């Protein structure tokens, strides 16, 4: 790379790390991480809502931090590691958050769920025992058009209890 690494022929070769796997891709600078995940890699679990960073449906973790993938250029994301909803389950076992969302009916239409779960995963990674207020403040950037925030918070708190060795019931 030169002093300013530049793309050639309008496309840049990148290695995108997603869910522990390396993808070699040729992308245009104006392709967002969201579009590359959905349309190039077929990872359609990450949803496109507003495409403006308002709704949070496209939330993925970039180096462990929740980000709106519609506001991250794919060329830029290649500097980090991406985790999407498809990468949460391990060895066929759902993540406790995914289990809790099902158990507590925290999913209605389901469109916000992947983004919600990714934001909440980032929260529980940092704060294993969040209060309800911390949960609500963490998901302030995730819109649920069904208005299911109450059950989403219940599910998040249950998942945090499960992850501490409990059975998820209060």
């Amino acid at each position, binding site marked *: 790379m030169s002093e300013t690494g530049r*793309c050639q022929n309008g496309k840049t070769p990148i290695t995108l790390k997603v869910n522990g796997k390396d993808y070699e891709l040729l992308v245009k600078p104006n392709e967002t991480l969201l579009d590359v995940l959905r349309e190039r890699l077929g990872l359609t679990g990450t949803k496109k809502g507003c495409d403006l*960073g308002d709704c949070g449906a496209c939330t993925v973790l970039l180096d462990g931090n929740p980000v*709106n993938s519609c506001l991250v250029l794919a060329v830029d994301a290649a500097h980090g590691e991406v985790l999407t909803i498809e990468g949460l389950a391990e060895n066929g076992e759902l993540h406790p958050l995914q289990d809790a969302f099902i158990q507590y009916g925290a999913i209605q239409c389901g469109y916000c769920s992947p983004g919600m779960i990714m934001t909440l995963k980032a929260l529980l990674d940092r704060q294993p025992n969040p209060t309800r207020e911390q949960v609500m403040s963490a998901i302030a950037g995730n819109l649920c058009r069904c208005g299911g925030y109450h059950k989403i918070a219940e599910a998040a708190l249950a998942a945090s209890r499960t992850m501490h060795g409990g059975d998820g019931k209060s």
Partner: protein
Amino acid sequence: MRSRLPAFEYAEARSVDAALSFLSARGAGAKPLAGGTDLLVAMRMKGARPSALVNLKTIPGLDKIEGREDGLHIGALVTMQAVASSSEVAREYACLAQAASVVGSWQVRCRATLGGNLCNGAPSAETAPPLLVLGAKAAIAEPGGRCQVIDLERFFHGPGATECSQGKLLLEVMVPKPEENLRTIYIKHSPRKAMDIAVVGVAVALSFDRGGHIIKDARIALGAVAPTPLRAREAEESLVGRAFTCDVARDAGRLAAACAKPISDVRASAEYRLEMIEVLVARALTALVDAGRGGQV
């Protein structure tokens, strides 16, 4: 479904000099890219059409918060989340941590940078009023390797216009070590609790003399109520040397409102903003005095 981002040339800078050379070679159409949380939205929604973007996040060293003898040095590429969660910022510069923690959403704060917040030149930039009351300075790199340090107050020229609007780069913000017992607060007023920009932003820094009764130093800065964030100097002067009372706080609020030149827009009318300055300045002063008596801000 929205259309794709318009096309642009893209480069990743490895050094400040390389970024400046790229910007000057490409001319007015080239823009620096930091967090992108404002720029990409402007490109989708507001017709921004940069011909080229140079990514600054690939320049090493601009994303550090460093406490030095003269104060806190915050790199322009430090994210809002890093400012909001830094124990160093929270300990001595509370109003700045408070402001950074109410920008956008968590997702936005993880990308948005301090430099981007300031360089966008939004009158409502959350971090501007706190930095103004803290007496911050901006270090700016110019083409040819020169670097100048200016008072942040001189950084803002108008809506969307700053000292760094064309061909210059903000490197870091330096916040001087606060005098002992300086207490600070930032209050954001907006209709929504999150994901909104301020209708009025008020930052106040206050210290008392040794007896704890007479105001020794007072600084007040306002956001979203004039073409740029600004200090309310008449209001500050009205406080210094006086004992704190509710009337003193109310007077300061009225004087602060007199410094503002708000507009009416979709978020609030100019009249409402003026009223809210009075209310919020008095509220901020009272909260700081209460905190000094052992309460919490």
